[in-house]
């Protein structure tokens, strides 16, 4: 839509464009696993319209229906007139954050405060972020909070791969700011605007010209959400884009492995990066690549964004991804997203035949011919 989402009123046209045909049911994962139409995209547009026209005062159920949307955007793939439901939901949340903050689950409020106070959404001290590395000053490897705090090995493996291919980026460690996605995701738009401009000036002041990230959410936030409010003087690339475009990645596994790839919503449907991760996987010798039953723009959301709030529903979503992988005979489900990795791993733990694997770790192993 451009220009950012200031109020739901800006989305009145989009809301009225919804035909209520219900075709989004064929995509919406929160509907598929509940069969409750108020947890479907059409339902959420109806709820937005009720708010817009002042016909309904939000209550707890209303909040649950609105906050459980993962913003995975598959509804738009299924929507005949391509209504921007995810943006409507974001705009609705921005209204609710202003008018009904008391109805927000405490977890979200804490997460938002944590970003503002500690530069991560998890409520952990900033010191728990991974160590820093001094490299080329103009190239930054933006690790992202999730990898930095919980999965530093993914970041270390990413670095290994980049260095082996001739790039030695800087890693900020504890100094790395949070991109602030959780703010914009949950409706704290004013706070997000502030964070966006702070992060951009911080990176610019450091002389950063290229940001490479492994996290699809940071990638989308820096590259797309920031652009709604501010202009960027640096380039933003996902690691898979850089590896395909700027380097010639070659690798080999010591044992044959059948691998499938899960498209993260923020990398695939949001940003259109579908081919690069596949090209990387297919360049690894001894690796047999198989597609999931639903892939690329049809990819199923893993439930990651709502795992903390609605764990039962999120698990049904990640179970579905894992079932798909078992169906196509993959022993590893590779994802290039820490949130997806965490989700998929929690479901894969119940199945002996399949595991979750993050892309950097696989690439580092293939480089070592491991």
């Amino acid at each position: 839509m451009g220009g950012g989402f200031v109020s739901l009123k800006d989305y009145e046209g989009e809301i009225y464009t919804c035909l209520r045909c219900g075709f989004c049911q064929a995509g919406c994962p929160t509907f598929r696993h509940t069969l409750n139409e108020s947890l479907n995209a059409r339902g959420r547009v109806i709820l937005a319209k009720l708010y817009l026209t002042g016909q309904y005062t939000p209550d707890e159920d209303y909040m649950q229906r609105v906050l459980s949307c993962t913003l995975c955007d598959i509804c738009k793939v299924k929507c005949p007139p391509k209504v921007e439901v995810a943006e409507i939901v974001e705009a609705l949340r921005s209204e609710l954050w202003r008018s009904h903050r008391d109805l927000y689950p405490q977890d979200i409020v804490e997460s938002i405060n944590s970003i503002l106070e500690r530069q991560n959404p998890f409520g952990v001290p900033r010191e728990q972020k991974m160590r820093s590395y001094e490299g080329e000053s103009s190239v930054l490897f933006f690790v992202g909070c999730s990898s930095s705090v919980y999965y530093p090995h993914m970041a270390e493996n990413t670095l290994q791969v980049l260095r082996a291919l001739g790039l030695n980026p800087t890693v900020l460690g504890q100094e790395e700011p949070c991109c602030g996605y959780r703010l914009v995701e949950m409706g704290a738009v004013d706070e997000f605007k502030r964070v966006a401009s702070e992060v951009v000036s911080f990176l610019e002041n450091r002389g950063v010209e290229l940001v490479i990230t492994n996290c699809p959410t940071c990638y989308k936030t820096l590259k797309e959400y920031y652009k709604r409010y501010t202009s960027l003087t640096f380039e933003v690339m996902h690691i898979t884009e850089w590896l395909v475009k700027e380097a010639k990645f070659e690798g080999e596994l010591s044992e044959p492995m059948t691998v499938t790839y899960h498209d993260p919503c923020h990398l695939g449907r949001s940003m259109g990066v579908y081919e690069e991760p596949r090209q990387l996987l297919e360049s690894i010798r001894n690796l047999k690549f198989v597609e999931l039953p639903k892939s690329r723009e049809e990819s199923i959301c893993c439930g990651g964004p709502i795992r903390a709030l609605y764990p039962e529903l999120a698990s049904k979503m990640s179970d579905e991804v894992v079932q798909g992988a078992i169906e196509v005979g993959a022993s590893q489900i590779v994802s290039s997203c820490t949130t997806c990795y965490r989700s998929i791993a929690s479901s894969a733990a119940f199945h002996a035949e399949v595991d979750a694997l993050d892309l950097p770790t696989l690439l580092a192993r293939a480089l070592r011919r491991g």
Partner: protein
Amino acid sequence: MISDAVVRKLEDIVGSENVSTSPTDLHVYSYDASIAHATPDVIVWPQTTEQVSQIMKLAYEEEIPVTPRGAGSCLSGGPLPLKGGISITMTKMTRILDLNPNRLQVSVEPGVVVDRLNEYLQPHGLFYPINPASSSIATIGGCVGEDAGPLRGVKYGTTKNWVLGLEVVLPNGKVIHVGSKTFKHVAGYDLVRLMVGSEGTLGIFTKINLRLAPIPEAVAVASAFFDSADAAGKGVRDAILSGVDPSGIELMERAVVEAASKHAGLKLPQAEFLILYEIAGSKESIEPRVRKLAKVLKEAGATAVDVAYEAEERARLWKARKAAFPALSRLRPTCIMEDVAVPIDNVGKLLEALRSLAKKHDVMVATFGHAGDGDLHPTITTDERDEEEMKRVAAFRADMYKAVVDLEGTITGEHGVGITKKPYLKLQFREDEIEVMRSIKRAIDPKNILNPGKII
């Protein structure tokens, strides 16, 4: 309003996780794909015939209205509970019970989605031909309730031609089985035909036995262009009379082709009317039939005829047809799709009438639809917030239905009467005929609890 005691009884029947009285949910279940809305007091998701029967017994005893719902994709307000009460939502009954390829039959629960059924049937070389535009979400139960029509209605007709038998829960909770497992049967009144298209007013379907068809070996699509409504009408009629046996004939007028081409990013030749003809059957039959069709269409006045034999090219044409409605919906804030049908030799006259009425009432109307069934979707693009314009829309609709009846047609070919066309049923039928319908309704549902306020 429904008492807490009744809600507790419903929870006892289906489990509390399958009952909702949340105002948030009730608001969402107030809508379908029509412009109408009506709010239930409680939503219930049963999973077995026995549960449906118990719900109906309870409702019958307490005289609570019950309105069945599938995917909620109805275009006439069928699943909207005009009198409140229970919205009984069948989407959790999704089992495919019994496929018998040797009989060309499958038995399903009502919540099975049409596309899911066809995915299931495809490896057996079979399909269920009645795939409405909403087949990715539409439930079989909803299709039976509304007698839904497909894109290929010329050859395959509508849902009523493919339902062999039904398990029905009556308003008093009794479970009956109607129809037969044979392709023909004349034992007693045809209760299957009575139930199909009854819009949830006579019974709730809990099992549906469907007839299936073998997937055709080969398909071609011809596109023909016409300069006038009269020539387009002839192009429809003569194609059917010619004996080349098209399976579907779909029409789009200029405004639709323009919007759809833009929406789907396709380059299509512009003409007053574009008609697509699907020819399906054995490989060797296709070419001679298409050749004959092209000759017939040129004689009928087509300015050009193109043929697509390759899957990719056919997909391009169907993409344009499928983009028709969404493309129109982007033109104005509100989009109302009508559904009127006339005998196949009156299609040209209907097209002319629609154009002149749209002009008379100063309303934007773009028409597309299943011309081979005589069934067209004049689509009004408007703004529901503009009262003055909505009055003109209402006037157009009233005149349109009159014109359709004058052309010996029907006020609805496949979307149902529901709420949105109820005021116009009397244009098509006299009081004597409507009274027969009422007496059937009274006989089956004496307390008028099943989807009250609809059709009649």
